């Protein structure tokens, strides 16, 4: 487990809980993530990278049904969700996983132009091509959410 970093926050003022994720002046607890992808190699690589870059990967799932179960158990702040799962489409699954404080970021080995408008319609925070996955890109999307 690498060094845990707090989320950079654009808001100032007294500490408060916003519901979606903690948006406080100083954050000591790393954001929790569940990685959902049917390729074990990708899950492994993503876990290593995200943990190195200050995320706490609290769970993994290989299909839609187990993703819903894991998310219900661990209630992560972020679900990194592949758009093409064996039993469901990530677009269809995103609304079910965006509950409570959990938010969804969609991912795929295709790029954004190949995905179209469905990311917006799915209610996910955004989309990250798998080869561009990093702690930084995820934080940027989470930050965008914090601003809105």
């Amino acid at each position, binding site marked *: 487990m690498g060094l845990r970093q707090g989320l950079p926050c654009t808001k100032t003022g007294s500490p408060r809980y916003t519901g979606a994720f903690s948006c406080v002046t100083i954050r000591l607890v790393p954001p929790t993530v569940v990685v959902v992808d049917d*390729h074990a*190699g*990708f899950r*492994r*690589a*993503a876990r*290593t*990278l995200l943990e*190195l*870059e200050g995320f706490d990967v609290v769970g993994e799932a290989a299909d839609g049904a187990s993703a819903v179960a894991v998310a219900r158990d661990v209630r992560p702040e972020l679900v990194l969700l592949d758009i*093409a799962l064996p039993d469901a489409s990530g677009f269809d699954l995103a609304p079910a996983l965006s509950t409570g404080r959990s938010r969804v970021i969609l991912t795929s*080995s*295709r*790029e954004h*132009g*190949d*995905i*179209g*408008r*469905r990311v917006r319609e799915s209610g996910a925070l955004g989309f990250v091509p*798998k*080869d561009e*996955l*990093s702690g930084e890109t995820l934080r940027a999307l989470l930050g965008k959410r914090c601003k809105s």
Partner: protein
Amino acid sequence: MQKLIPPVAAVLAIPLAVVAYHIQVRDLYQPRDHAAAIITVACAFVAAGAVAWWCRPYNRLGLLMMAAGFALLLRQLRYSHDALVFTLFFALGELCFALVPHSALAYPSGEIRRRAERALVKVGYATVIAFPLAMLLFHASTGRLIDFGDPFPRKSLLMIDGNDDVVEVLQKALVVVFYLVLGSCFIAVLIRRLVEAPPRMRRVLAPLLLAAVAIALRAVFEAVFTFIDRPFAYDYLFWWQIGAFIALPLALLAGLLRARLARGSVGDLVVELERTPPQQMRDALAQALDDPTLELTFWLPERQTYADAAGKPIDLPRADPRRLVTTIEHDGEPLAAMIHDPSLGEEPKLVQAAGAAAHLALENARLQAETRAQLLQVQESRARIVAAGDEARRRIERDLHDGAQQRLVALALQLRSAQHQLRGREDAEVENLLTTAAEELQGAVTELRELARGVHPAILTEEGLAAAVESLTARTATPVTLDVQDERLPAAVEATAYFVICEALTNVAKHADAANVRIGGRQRNGTFVVTVEDDGVGGATAGESSGLRGLIDRVEALGGRVTIESARGAGTRIEAEIPCES
């Protein structure tokens, strides 16, 4: 030669009519006007039958009517005082009264189709032969026969036991069985045919109503004459039935000729159909047979099915009361089939004659239909090849996405993790190596992604043409104005339209030197029309090896077409029309 039979037979009827008239007057003491009236009825049948036979040699109705007329003339010979003539023609005398209803039931086709009607006619013939023969066995020469008005005896050569009572019972039984029972059945059958007939057929069948009236009058006349000692209203009944029986053959003839006149002679029909070009066969047959609903289908021996002129397979209607099928054969092999109005079923020989006359042109038309069917098969096969190609492309894209792309992406993440862990260790050489490897890998991932997209863009399958074209044009250097309808279309249409746009945009990028491109896609009357216009240098052609040629082939495989307008200096406009329904 055959054509001469009806007029010759009609001429032969004249001396027979003279003899019959004389026997009526001389041997039966019949009033002259009554005798003339009976002979007129017989002559009306002979004349109408001769005309019908002459005009329509394929129809047996003319022959039947002539036979009825001759039988009625010969019937008069039974009043002869000569024993042999009396015996012979008394035995056969009632035949005319079986032939008249037979003619009516055979109208207008010359044939009786229904089993019940055939049975009725057979029973009628049996009755009119059996009863007179039985009477002759018991007829004593002194005995009086009911409808023999003269007082003179006639000798039966067949008598075995003279018994007038038996003869009287038999005569009355004949009236009851033949006129009352069979006559009622006959009238019921005629009325049923009229009621059940479709409206067009009902007009044709109208003369049958007259036949029913004639037979009813005859039955009443016979009953009155047989069972009432002093017949009342004898004269009225006599003249009414005479009137009905003269009108009947004329009405049958008129009904037969009315349809006939519209068509011209069978000879003309033969000549006309022999000269008809194959593509006009249906219209010519429809006109010749006076049935605008007629459909013509051709037998395709290779496919063992019937097909229309365009080569499209057709199932012949079976057990459909509104349509009838006539199969035309040549040398024992099916050639074609006509699907037509059931009323034409009343004239099967005419329909067959028309089919036979047209066999040469039909054979040509069949060959054309066969060629079209083969073309249709090729067309379907081309469309299937395109669909199979699309499916293979989709599968390759999926395999690339699920296999190599995933592995490379995971590798890229692992490299990034390695880079992260090396940070701060001040090992510049390894760090450089890792950075180069990560860049190379990123290049490979991008190239593989481009390759997969070129093979078959996933967005096209998942979101349709509009989204796929939007994604495509986002990567195009030339500004593009998009007007593509955002509706899902059949997969083959979407893929074809997409590749048309891809190829056109590639051409724009390579050769057009255009400042603006406009892409349109709209569905019009079941056809999806794609247009790609640019304001570049023009001069594009669909050479044999060009990408455009391949696109034209692809669009044509789906039954569509491509138009290229590309005058030098006037930009290029490519329009593809792709049918949406196969």
